[in-house]
């Protein structure tokens, strides 16, 4: 198992509050790994720091051996680390096709090209991705017209368009209907086996987590309290405490 992503003592403080503090985590190539924790545990903040949506207060992020801490978002993306957002973050006025084509053009280094026509460029690849996420029929609709579930899928397709080695998904199934959720779970597993994608995701739906995650990292109040196989995490006392609540003394 080669490591693909590693963080060292990653910390982010908002004022006096540490949203994430001293988190060390390692994700290995081609694994599906989940980050869980109660609300406000710092999962989104962690993702935001890794992809440099937020600056870390201190700490380092390494991706495939390179230090990517504080690099601009577009450079991180081009290195093969993509992310999807918790609140759907799509292009409301672009068509589904354009949105995904944009990602592909961008990683092929053609986003600044003035002398080509966008029309047929990478069209097959775009449609392949759309077919994979099941949006092929809606390809001519603009993003704002999609249903919530479709927006989520578009969100994913935009990220996949950047041909990532690793994908960070923040609550990918939030607000989805059950069948949509399981469709997404299948898709993620397929992406891993067919394209060799590494996935790190946060999720509230524990069924999903325990279904596909091979390793689980638990955050509580910004601190990593436990890490391991799903069974180990299930059995862990500290995890029970942080979810079920425990007398303060028990933690200290």
């Amino acid at each position, binding site marked *: 198992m080669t490591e693909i992503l590693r963080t060292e003592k990653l910390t982010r403080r908002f004022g006096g509050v540490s949203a994430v503090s001293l988190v060390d985590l390692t994700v290995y190539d081609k694994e599906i790994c989940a980050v869980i924790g109660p609300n406000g545990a710092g999962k989104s903040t962690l993702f935001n720091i890794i992809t440099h949506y937020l600056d870390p207060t201190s700490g380092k992020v390494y991706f495939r051996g390179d230090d990517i801490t504080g690099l601009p978002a577009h450079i991180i993306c081009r290195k093969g680390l993509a992310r999807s957002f918790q609140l759907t973050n799509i292009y409301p006025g672009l*068509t589904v096709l354009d949105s995904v084509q944009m990602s592909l053009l961008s990683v092929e280094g053609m986003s600044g090209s003035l002398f080509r026509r966008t029309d047929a460029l990478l069209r097959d690849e775009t449609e392949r991705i759309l077919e994979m996420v099941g949006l092929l029929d809606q390809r001519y609709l603009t993003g704002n017209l999609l249903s919530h579930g479709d927006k989520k899928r578009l969100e994913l397709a935009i990220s996949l368009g950047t041909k990532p080695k690793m994908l960070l998904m923040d609550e990918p199934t939030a607000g989805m209907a059950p069948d949509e959720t399981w469709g997404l779970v299948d898709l993620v597993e397929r992406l891993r086996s067919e394209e060799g994608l590494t996935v790190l995701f946060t999720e509230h739906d524990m069924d999903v987590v325990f279904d596909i995650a091979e390793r689980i990292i638990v955050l509580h109040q910004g601190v990593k309290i436990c890490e391991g196989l799903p069974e180990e995490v299930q059995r862990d006392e500290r995890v029970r405490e942080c979810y079920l609540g425990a007398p303060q003394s028990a933690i200290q």
Partner: protein
Amino acid sequence: MGTCLNSRLIQECVTVFPVWVCAKDRPLWLDSRFNDILPTDERPNYPMKKNWLIPLCGGAVFLALGIVLGEFWVKVATEAVIMVLFAASFSLLYGQTGLLSFGQGAYFAAGAYGFALAMTKLDLAFPVCLLIGMATAFVWALATGYLCVRLAGIYFAIMTVVVSQSTFYLVFQWYGLTNGDNGIQGLAPPEILHDPRAYYYFTLLVAGSAYFVYYRLLTSPFGLSLRSIRENSVRAGFVGIDVKKHTLKAFVLAGLFAGLSGVLFAPFTRTVVPQMADWMASGKAVFMGILGGAAHLAGPLVGGLVWIFLDAFVSGFTIHWPLIIGLLVFLIVFFMPGGLMGLVASIASKGGPGRGREQSS
């Protein structure tokens, strides 16, 4: 009850109807720039079908205008053709990239003054002067754009106002070089272009080529990048687009369009004055762009033509052109955010599925 119903009806007509026309089933009329994105089952937006009919007809009309019109109106048509490029400059930034610039006049003036100085001080040949004017606009847009694109939203808008007004003062105060308030006169084009009709065809050729470039720009991957920055600049960064670099590039290209129109304008009026740079002059680009519909390919074309011809027509019987144009733009932004092209596109798209898009191109 009756009057109540009536006023309700009037209200509907005044407010709701245009909204409905522009937006069909969405409340998105709040954003003018969304108007070009109605769903159709053809592939919408800029990557168009190769439809040569409309550009050909348009071209033929323009060619015919030079013969049919009297001398006064040929001059108006020349100005209109030049101003189309000025409107394109604004539209590239606002309609495509989502950056509201009140400062395009700075690059218009840079082009015009570059041309004028090359002609009067260096005594160079006409085509070389044109190129020097363009180069001046390029350099000025690069230098000031580097500062502007670091900012977003309202700060960007204010910075462009500051830049254009600074350009104005620079030109105004640098008496030794620019002749200050007096401007520079006597910028005649070469003998062969002295006739208004000849100059009309010359500008038509140059501006037509430039508009083809504008079209290619919008259909290129770069054009799509600009639209994704407009729609969601954060997300654009996260799919690997260098947002700052791209906006700077758009800014410089927009500066070149403004510069080209300035370069063509100087030998047309044979004068350059500092007022070309100030923010009211820049406002002209803003208004023309909004009038036509900044997000549409044909928006600047329609906006520029309508504005200049309307101006020439209205000036015949009233001096209150600013009032008229102010009201017009006011109403358009309020009720018809897609501009004239938005209206055309939405009417055309009702003609039959998928046809509207082709026509709007």
